[in-house]
């Protein structure tokens, strides 16, 4: 079924927090929404590659499900 808009927003927030915690994603407070989404897609690709998921930069159910697994709080990637 299509994801309800508020659920989609919620998932996006969750994913952003996850990527900040574990993949060194830094959301830039820029006006250019597109740039932000591209950077986030890059980080999603990095996370998908780490866990052996299909690497497409999309926040699909499998990727979200992996993000919601109980895990260690130490980052997977760090600067």
């Amino acid at each position, binding site marked *: 079924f299509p994801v309800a808009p508020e659920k989609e927003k919620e998932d996006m927030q969750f994913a952003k927090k996850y990527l900040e915690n*574990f993949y060194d994603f830094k959301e830039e407070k820029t006006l250019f929404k597109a740039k932000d989404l591209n950077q986030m897609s890059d980080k999603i690709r990095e996370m998908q590659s780490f866990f052996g998921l299909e690497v497409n930069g999309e926040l699909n159910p499998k990727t979200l499900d992996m993000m919601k697994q109980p895990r260690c*709080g130490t980052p997977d990637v*760090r600067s």
Partner: protein
Amino acid sequence: YSAFPHRPTWRKEDVTYRILNYTPDMLQADVEEAIARAFQVWSSVTPLRFTRLYGGQADIMISFAAGFHGDFYSFDGPGGTLAHAYPPGGGIGGDAHFDEDENWTKFTTYSGYNLFLVAAHELGHSLGLSHSNVFGALMYPIYMARDTRNFQLHQDDIDGIQALYGPPRESPALPTKAFPPQEPTEMAPAETPTEMSPREEPTEGTPSKPHQRPDDCDPHLSFDAITTLRGETLFFKDSYVWRKSPYFSDIEHDTIFSFWPSLIAGFDAAYEVDNKDRVLFFKDNQYWAVSGYSIESGFPKPIQNLGFPTSVRKIDAAVHDQNTKRTYFFVGNKYWSFNENTQSMERGYPRKIAADFQGISHPVDAALQKNGYFYFFHGSNQYEVDIKKKKLIRIMKSNSWFNC
């Protein structure tokens, strides 16, 4: 596997840890056991040794906390992040934090998170490992419930930690040559008493594989430690224990793990204080006390608690004299006498072993008191001594107790 940027590691082999607080989800003794076992996972594949401190600053400080707990990584309530740890270094370096909002357990059910598994992972970070993307590796970032009874590190974890610290040191015991499989031999007749033969030198030939299950009647068999326990006699070697019972004719052969899962294998010494139903196990500079299957809380403790000087890093053997209530500790060619009633070392020690134990003039691997005599084990021989008469009575093969 991966390391942290700049590969931080501990620049020493003796690393200390301290448990700062406990989760109300588990018995303190179970928390201590889980943490001790988690350290053993890493000490068994590296030269590292871990000593628990009970005060002051330790290298690795272990604590339970919820939400914001003083560092930049607040916990997030139940689920999600379970714990985190910092790479080796000063201050917060090496510390491991566990989210108190989780349900911690010593089991591997799905009603909570197994503290041993999570702690073993976090301590990997405390030693310098970052995450692995190998599914099934301990350092994989996502929690996976699994059977912890015979827990084995994934090869990826071993490769990772040994890239930082190398493999364990050769075991202090002399490597023994491999033996072709042979029929159990007739027990060698008791030799005429002579001085202990000098410690056998390792001979050529491929060393036996470490921790291969030794053959009960191998004439070259030697032991790490021997103790009585509630009327039985236990013989320890590497991760194995032979159990000789007055109630059964045959010898039971088990793994130490099957009796005490959280105890480190490869003891140096062990002895029983029969009137306290207590057995003490020694490894390196620490000791544990057990009563039957249960490990007393608050262990391991440093052997200095018994009165050893810091120069003593490990003991070779120990035996309790049920008549005098003294325990004799053997280190090199000397021995100490410990008064179990006053719980203190006796004055005038250490003394030379040869001065008081006739014919025993080399290091002792293990010691036992049985039927009024003392038995001192050195390599594949044991020396039966009557200490009242200060007389060496006979020499036998170490495994003469196994009715080979």
